[in-house]
């Protein structure tokens, strides 16, 4: 039963070709559109964040379900663990931002400071920014590595000690992630508009992370099932993942609505300017994000058997992934690019480039360990699982 996933040459070529298309598109855009450095750095930040969120979801999924004693996810554990292996790469990519700080963040220029930015320069200053980034990544990478090692050592011996140790690690990660998920979103995304603030922003980015993670998880399962693996994953597991995608996209809409409605309602200029720029500047994009992230998954996954059919679920997951990408795009572009932002070749190109690299890293890591973990006390429950 401990078959490994073999990363066939054909799949490697597919990933490579995606990256190449990406590079081609970027080259084309440099020829025709010759984007300024702001746009380039914006795309780097955008895709860094997007794929960082997917990898963070990996660790989060394992940790959350370990604490909640849930049993159904155990047979699928290897996939989120593989997702989390991308963390070191995204750390490296994020530290690349050192060179692009002046393009991305107004507060990094000292001359642009007005009283409000001056007031928060104790938090928004370059050295502290990178110290925090370093702390986040050491915490995430460290804990995800330990969780993966724990799961690997659990394969070798069925000593109950590993289960308890795993739970403690999971609790540690959850505590660390609860705080850092908010601060990371303030540092990297909210500070693009230094004057704007919303207390819900941290949790809104967190839920965006969770939904895109579930969607990526479903897509990888669909990819593996299409290649003949994961036969122990039945319709019940898919049904639960479908329910996650359905439920959490509703929760994403709930957070989005209340953040927008409360700011719309009190109509205080320092808060409404954020949505005024986006609603009047990018009306189509503003509503497409809502449709792709809520309306479509809500109607598509409402019926019971829609959540049990792998093809339909994969299609909805892909749509949600695109929706979440656009959501982060809309969070960043008005602040960095102002009115001139539009989705051009370089955006698509850099997305493909990152996608190719991400898939290659994740699936390569997946093939290192056997697909099915052993000696987990809940493994049996995961097989005989019925909703």
């Amino acid at each position, binding site marked *: 039963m401990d078959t490994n996933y073999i990363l066939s040459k054909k799949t490697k070529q597919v990933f490579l070709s995606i990256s190449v298309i990406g590079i081609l598109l970027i080259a084309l855009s440099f020829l025709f559109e010759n984007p300024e450095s702001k746009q380039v750095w914006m795309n780097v930040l955008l895709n860094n964040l997007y794929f960082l969120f997917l990898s963070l979801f990996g660790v989060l999924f394992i940790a959350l379900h370990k604490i909640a004693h849930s049993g159904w996810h155990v047979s699928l554990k290897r996939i989120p663990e593989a997702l989390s292996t991308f963390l070191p790469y995204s750390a490296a990519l994020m530290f690349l931002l050192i060179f692009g700080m002046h393009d991305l963040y107004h507060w990094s220029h000292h001359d642009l400071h007005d009283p409000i930015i001056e007031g928060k320069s104790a938090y928004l200053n370059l050295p502290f920014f990178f110290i925090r980034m370093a702390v986040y990544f050491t915490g995430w990478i460290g804990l995800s590595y330990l969780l993966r090692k724990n799961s690997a050592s659990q394969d070798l011996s069925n000593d109950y000690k590993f289960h308890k140790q795993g739970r403690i690690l999971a609790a540690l990660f959850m505590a660390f992630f609860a705080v850092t998920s908010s601060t990371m979103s303030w540092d990297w995304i909210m500070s693009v508009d230094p004057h704007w603030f919303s207390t819900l922003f941290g949790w809104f980015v967190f839920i965006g992370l969770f939904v895109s993670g579930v969607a990526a998880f479903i897509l990888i399962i669909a990819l593996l099932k299409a290649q003949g693996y994961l036969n122990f994953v039945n319709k019940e597991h898919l049904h639960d993942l479908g329910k996650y995608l359905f439920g959490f996209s509703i929760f994403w809409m709930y957070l989005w609505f209340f953040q927008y*409605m409360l700011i719309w309602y009190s109509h205080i200029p320092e808060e409404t300017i954020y949505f005024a720029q986006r609603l009047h500047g990018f009306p189509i994009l503003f509503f497409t994000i809502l449709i792709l992230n809520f309306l479509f998954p809500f109607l598509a996954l409402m019926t019971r058997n829609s959540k049990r059919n792998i093809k339909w679920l994969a299609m909805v997951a892909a749509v949600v992934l695109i929706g979440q990408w656009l959501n982060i795009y809309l969070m960043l572009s008005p602040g960095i690019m102002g009115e001139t932002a539009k989705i051009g070749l370089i955006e698509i190109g850099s997305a493909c480039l990152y996608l190719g690299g991400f898939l290659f890293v994740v699936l390569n890591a997946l093939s290192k360990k056997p697909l099915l973990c052993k000696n987990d006390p809940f493994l049996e429950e995961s097989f005989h699982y019925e909703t």
Partner: protein
Amino acid sequence: MRSYISAYFTDEEDLLRAIKILMEKKILILDVLTPFPVHGIDKVLGLKESKLPTVGFIAGAIGTLFAFGFQTWAFVVDYPLFIGGKPHFSIPAFIPITFEVTVLFAAFAMVFAFLFRSKLGLGAKNKIHDERITDDRFVIIIEANENDEYFNNVKAILEQEEAHEIQLKEHK
């Protein structure tokens, strides 16, 4: 006077096995009474999926349209008021009530549909088959028509499945 065979069981596994056998023998089971919802019994009995979710969805949709429509009508058409400098047709302010009314309609529609379809309700005169059904007994009710041979055949099967007790009952 119609007479029924009611076979009593004390455990749901025996009940499921008995039903499976009876179904294979094409014996018409009138009803099965259990103290709690037995998992997987409706698959064995081949019962159709209940259409309550669709009732809920339709009622919910009606609720959404009704609530949103009424608020828009009241605030834009019938008596538009200048309130807080906000436009008359302010969608974000209509959504909370729309959601609440949707949930209300869906819940009430499903409950009434359930009670109506199951003929349950205040003052429903359903015949209580046995006091212990709601305690710990599982009962299969099979129609016992006249010819004994069919009757004995059924009795044999039930005994073979160690039915706890078999009774012959008459109901008006």
